């Protein structure tokens, strides 16, 4: 089963504006947020966002680059991966 969803993972020191910054960038690209969770690992803030990429206005590579740049400004690391990598690893 092929789906068009991706997982955005944001990691870094917690600060004001991370959620707003990243979700703003997603909205800009027309990526719908389907689910969102966050957690703390020691000092590290980790946010995981499941997004629908079927209607995005830019390529996935471009979206990744935009999020990476936005993340840099916020002092966080952003990864974007097609959800299949998680599905393959964690679901049989």
């Amino acid at each position, binding site marked *: 089963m092929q789906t068009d969803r991706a997982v955005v993972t944001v*990691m870094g020191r917690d600060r004001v504006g991370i959620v707003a910054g990243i979700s703003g960038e997603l909205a800009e690209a027309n990526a719908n947020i389907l*689910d969102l969770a966050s957690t703390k690992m020691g000092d590290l803030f980790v946010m*995981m966002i499941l997004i629908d990429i079927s209607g995005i206005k830019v390529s996935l590579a471009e979206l990744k680059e935009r999020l990476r740049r936005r993340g840099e400004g916020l002092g966080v690391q952003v990864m974007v*991966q*097609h959800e299949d*990598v*998680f599905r393959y*690893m*964690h679901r049989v």
Partner: protein
Amino acid sequence: MFSKDEIIETIRMILVEHLNVRAVTLGINLLDCVSDDFDSMRDRVEEKISEVAGGFVEEAKAVEEKYGIPIVNKRIAVTPASALLGPAIVRIPEEGAIELAVELARAFDEGARRVGVDFIGGYGALVQKGFTRADSILLRSIPRALASTERVCSCVNIATTKAGINVDAARAMGKVILETAWATANRSGIGCCKLAAFANAPEDNPFMAGAYHGLGEPESVINVGISGPAVIRAAVEQSQGEDFRALAERIKRTAFKITRVGELVGREMAERLGVRFGIVDLSLAPTPEAGESIADIIEAMGIESCGAPGSTAALALLTDAVKKGGAMATSFVGGLSGAFIPVSEDAGMRDALRAGSLSLEKLEAMTSVCSVGLDMIAIPGDTPPETISAIIMDGMAIGVVNDKPIGVRLIPVPGKGAGDVVEFGGLFGSAIVMSVSRFSASKFIERGGHIPPSILSLRG
């Protein structure tokens, strides 16, 4: 949605434990390039590699991007060169034919360079039962071929469980290896890093130097080699205090996850290139990077330094658990599928050598429970060819009697002796020259001929 723990586990494997796909290898059939006119065959070989593999590296990069998983090596495997060469060298005297073989190697190199892959495997021959004329020519051309190319790898299969061991080939390979070392003496014998003698060489092996596109393979095919020694080591480190049953279970679960990534990447690559997805090779492949070491896993199990008593049992447990976990994770398992213990490419193995816990003899014992045998072992440059042949034969015997693939990749380093350090660079790493027994096997090797297949081959 996935749980937070699942997502974090995956991210940790990629960022902290360097999870990657070690090799995606595109197998290409070149039999339709065969011609009795050498020039047209050579041109066709270069063209076909470009045609089939033109978009290979670009697609691999797109897949890396999509899943956030690095694909470390993009490679090509082709039909064994000796099977291509025959018609083009009929009636051409030996020296001229050898020169044409070297030119074919250069065509492989050029094809690989054009499409941007780092290695192309298949400059080899299958001689387990004997030599065709083309096989003999090809074997003799190997030193010059490897000295005049960058990307070409050579694998010569000299034994199988069914055919026994071609001792004449083992004898020839002793000389070929030494000549290759001397032909690349200005770079510490690096040609030998790209040359392996094999028993039971799989037709779908994605790893160099043993990769070639077997005659039973389809037109073109994607084969994937997984990785993940650091991921497995992290799992083993979490198992302190657990017994072996729990340890095996833990490795199995982790191997499953690593292999699934290989399966995903392989399927996607095959779909993008419009070719068949072949196999996932379950081998754990180390690199010279810190942490990416099989020796480290063995030590994390509780062995003070790799090579100490217990190392063979530790490696056996590791290989078996990786296979069991991996077999569940992929539709087709193939290639070598076992742990690799290439000495120069594994920083932990080098440390063990330095510490004095690892010897050639212990490595030989360890090869009986893993896949690629005596791999990337630097030996003194003055090792006699008969001794090299005899080491190869020991490896072949382990492969044939255990009915498994095994390779021997030895690097006699010109001008160096035991204990000297040699830098090969890149993926080949650096090596400490190992000492080799000073006792001779020359009378044994001089017998020549063929060791008959073991009784194990009488099946069916």
